[in-house]
């Protein structure tokens, strides 16, 4: 029987790590948001009035079973802080942790391997606890498919091997079968993206490259905002029911059939549109037999 991602990580680290068994009835697709600590979500009513940032994660974990950590793109994760976060959520909660910019956007030829080592140390508490669902490598729109970049990406994936990896391309040049085949070969998930339809952006494909994981990110379809350079405009979008329905019924359903676990995150965080859309999608997935457990305290009630 092939080893799971966490088992392989454990073997690689020379540790006897067994992945914790998921309680019966918990679905394989987890839906959440990209980041959870937004003060504006208090005003938008997602968090109760007066919620301080330090209290947001436990409240978030009452509603969602996974979160994508975005701050790690800005700052290298530190084991102490990550462990503190881990202890704020139930054991069934999972984290997808974005790779730090020093390995994706601001790469120093001589330093990046050291950065990978630091990153591994930072996320180790999650990996050890079996709560690291994915490491997200988000590559910039300027990261076009060229020979040196292909080599760099291969070396980076090699260096990160053993961790559950997902790669998000922004540039369209990576949308080729050869790339997908290589990712499949490495059992690395290709991130399916929903973003504005711009010719240079990676298209929304439901290609599954890893039997262990599929990964979807919803960035919103605000075309004007995407070009503005202002994050608040870029991710200001509310998905309509029809748009989500299309993803739930066709794409996510298809991907779920080809991979054992799935992660879906909404990045349209402005005015707390992301958690609202995430809840909508969860309801749709539950309706079609892919339930998402929002409340881990009562797992039996959510199994359908």
């Amino acid at each position: 029987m092939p080893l799971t991602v966490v088992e392989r990580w454990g073997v690689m680290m020379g540790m006897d790590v067994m992945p914790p068994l998921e309680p019966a009835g918990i679905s394989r697709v987890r839906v959440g948001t990209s980041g959870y600590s937004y003060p504006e979500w208090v005003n938008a009513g997602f968090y109760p009035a007066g919620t301080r940032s330090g209290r947001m994660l436990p409240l978030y974990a009452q509603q969602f079973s996974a979160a994508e950590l975005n701050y790690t793109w800005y700052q290298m994760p530190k084991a102490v802080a990550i462990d503190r976060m881990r202890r704020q959520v139930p054991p069934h909660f999972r984290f997808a942790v974005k790779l730090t910019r020093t390995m994706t956007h601001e790469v120093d030829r001589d330093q990046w391997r050291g950065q990978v080592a630091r990153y591994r140390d930072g996320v180790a508490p999650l990996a050890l606890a079996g709560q690291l669902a994915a490491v997200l490598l988000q590559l910039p729109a300027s990261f076009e498919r060229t020979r040196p970049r292909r080599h760099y990406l291969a070396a980076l994936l090699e260096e990160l091997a053993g961790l559950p990896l997902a790669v998000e391309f922004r540039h369209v040049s990576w949308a080729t079968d050869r790339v997908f085949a290589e990712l499949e070969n490495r059992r690395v998930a290709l991130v399916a993206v929903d973003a504005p339809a711009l010719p240079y952006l990676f298209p929304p494909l439901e290609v599954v490259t890893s039997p262990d994981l599929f990964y979807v990110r919803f960035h919103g379809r605000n075309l004007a905002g995407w070009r503005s350079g202002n994050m608040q405009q870029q991710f200001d979008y509310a998905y309509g029911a029809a748009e989500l329905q299309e993803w739930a019924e066709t794409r996510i359903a298809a991907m779920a059939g080809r991979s054992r676990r799935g992660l879906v995150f909404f990045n349209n965080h402005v005015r707390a549109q992301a958690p609202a859309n995430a809840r909508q999608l969860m309801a749709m997935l539950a309706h079609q037999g892919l339930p998402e457990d929002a409340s881990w305290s009562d797992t039996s009630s959510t199994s359908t």
Partner: protein
Amino acid sequence: MERHVIHINVADFAVAVERAMDRRLRERPVVIAPDGVSRAVVYDMSEEAYQAGVRKGMALRRAVRLCPDVRILPPHPSRYEQVMQALVRQALPYSPLIEPGEADGHLFVDVTGTSRLFGPPVDVAWRLRRQAWTELSLAPGWAVAPNKLVAKVATRLVKPDGDAIVRAGDEARFLVPVPLHLVPGIEHRDLVRLGGFNLRRAGQVASLSRDALQAPFGRRAFHLFDVVRGIDRSPVRPVGHQPPRVVTAHTFEEDAHAVPVVEGALYGLVEKAGQVLRRQSLAAGRVMVTVDFSDGLRGARQRSLRPATANDMALFETARSVLHMAWRRRVRIRHLRLMCDRLTFPPAQRELFPSAADADRRQTCLVSALDRIRQRFGTDAIKVGRTLAA
């Protein structure tokens, strides 16, 4: 509301500015020191020079011995000022609350409550850093923290160009391992005192109660108690809003070393500052004297005035003692600067004892008479003998 304060810190600012203008200076040791001065000292240096043992205030000759291939550049204060203004301009779109340091590459930006407009504070910090790099060729370190104190400690820890995020509620925990000399607000004499008790890190001091601190530190214990826990309520001031103060300065035609000459010049500065204060019906609660020596080194000291005063004689008495605290070296002085701040309305409390009250009254009358004469006949119509030496 939780505050989000960004601190931008360009390490070795003077060198960084010079390097941004001249790429050849990169990756080689650079020292900033006054030109053509026999006993010049180091004003700023690059990391390479620092690694070789060069320190601020070190004699230039010694610096050159330690680091023979060093490139020596004269200070260009106007350049630093210009780059500082450019840094402020870059931050302006994000917040009206921007507090720059004095041409030292430090900048606080309070982005509290702006996330609906500009996104998470950490993203704003990263953008500021990126702009500094793309537009000014500077690579500052940055930090986001709930207040100025913690943000400043954070950038000091990640020097020269790292980044740090400290979340609300994590301030005290963040400071636990930090050496006390890196914590702003802990002065040299506090450090010496704390060192005497073998207290070297913020966490060690934070483990003491207010009462325990009060025994050796008196009233200062309250300040120390807060500082080591990362408590700082000071606001980031709006751009261009400096705390109210009166500043006067004098540059000697020839660098001065004679005490009467320097004191005479200081008295002249006191008179000017006093006049400004009295015209606004204000009194100064503190005076600060800065002396720039001919070798480029600077000395600065300050002292509180109790009670606050605008009387030339009372101001001078304190200013003179502060001058001699700042002027501990046997080196000529090029430039003298007097700053009066903590401005308040003059205290209404009169002296209790008749003799003191009488002296006080006479001094006030004398200064008022001088003011009246000068108003009528011009500033130079009457002079205090002491100022003739300057």
